[in-house]
């Protein structure tokens, strides 16, 4: 979505992410986000697969993500409250946070984002059978 609708911000996002690998687990779903040249990949990973050395580990649950998206809480509060758990070096975590901010700034400028957000939140609420994954492949 970002690559298609905000191409300049996509380039910036790739630069912010750099060589970092983010291994994210949300309940039974797990994805690995990494840069592959000038593309970003978000690959599904088996839940029990080992974490790549040096990857940033992020773990949470759908209710917490839904609460963040609904403005009920803030990122700072959920990290302090252990509802989002992080593991990595301080420098890597700060760099990943910069990439997250760029991602969010880009996403809110994408015309497709509201519909994608709605599908995600409806999935979380169990109102539809739409996939709950918010991660889109970077494939064209």
């Amino acid at each position, binding site marked *: 979505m970002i690559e298609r609708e905000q191409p300049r911000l996509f380039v910036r996002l790739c630069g912010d992410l750099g060589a970092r690998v983010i291994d994210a687990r949300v309940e039974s779903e797990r994805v690995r986000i990494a840069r592959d040249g000038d593309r970003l990949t978000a690959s599904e990973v088996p839940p029990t697969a080992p974490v790549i050395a040096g990857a940033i580990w992020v773990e949470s649950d759908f209710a917490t993500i839904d609460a963040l998206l609904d403005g009920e809480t803030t990122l700072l509060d959920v990290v302090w409250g252990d509802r989002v758990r992080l593991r990595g070096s301080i420098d890597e975590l700060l760099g990943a946070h910069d990439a997250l901010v*760029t991602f*969010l700034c880009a996403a809110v400028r*994408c*015309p497709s984002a509201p519909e994608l957000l709605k599908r995600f939140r409806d999935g979380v609420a169990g109102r539809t059978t739409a996939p709950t994954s918010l991660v889109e492949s970077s494939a064209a």
Partner: protein
Amino acid sequence: MIPASEPLRPVAREVLDRTIERGDYWRGSPLRLGEAPGYKEWLHFCIYGEDIDVLVNFSIVDELASHAGSPREFARIVCLIHTKTGWTGDVIGFPSDQVTARRGAISLEFGENRVHFHDGVFSIRAMLPERDIAIELMLTPATIPSPANNIGVEDGPPIHWIVLPRLLATGVVRLGGTVHRLDRAPAYHDHNWGHFRWGKNFAWEWGYGLPERASEAWSTVFVRLSDRGHNQTFMQALFVWKGERQHRVFRDEELSVTHHGLLRPAKAFKLPRVMGLVHPGSAADIPARMVLEAEGRGDRARMEFVFEDVAQVIIPNDDDLGVTVINEVNATYTFGGVIRGEAIEVTGRAVVEFLSH
């Protein structure tokens, strides 16, 4: 002078209706005519019920982001409601195939929602089902509107507006399981348009107050347009209506504005809610009180706002990664002084917008 609680004489009604039709019509984006994107236009309404303040805004904005290769217009309804439990609300968007906006008329249809002006009455319908909000109101204008064209900002195209400071609203507002029935409740309307860009070097303070007693004739609107840092004022004015007609405008050097204290909300309600991730926190440069003192040509007036609670509408900037925050702050106000030899003392409710970055 016709108090707002009494119906207008037929001549005054005809003048009022004609002024609205000729001034408040929907301009429409020139995007369809091949011009550059960036146009913004909205109709804004504020209604003061007995235990409820309602803000509802119908907008169509050129989206600058690429979508299937070309910019497009996007329609939204933003609704903010304040009750004893604080602010709540929602934003809902509409694709172009669900939108009808008639240029040259006051007639918008976004899905099942609408704003129409017909036979001298605004009809508003806004349904936001995700948050169980339903608004069905008829608003009868009680004042002649005041236009302002080509208000310059430092580094961008100008802003245009028309202000209709007093209407009487009748109908229903439903919020969750609670139904609020309004009967001739005081209301406000404005209409803004232009190619101005969010994030440029401008900010505004825009307040409108209506008296608690319907028999009071005085309506007021305050506007101050400044640079982004609030260091240089581009224009400022306090508009005063008596009955249906504009009675006095205090401008520029006739007016001084002072802020007192800081409003420190424990938490600011944000719309769209997801924008809380981009703009977290509740710190905002909003005073606890704002005092306007006006004097000129033998007239003097003093208006004081005491602010209560803030809701934030957060908008991504057009040209950078920052955001523009429209702080909607509800308040009580007092307005007093002497204008054209007539003593004034009014109390009422108000909403003031503080635009910040």
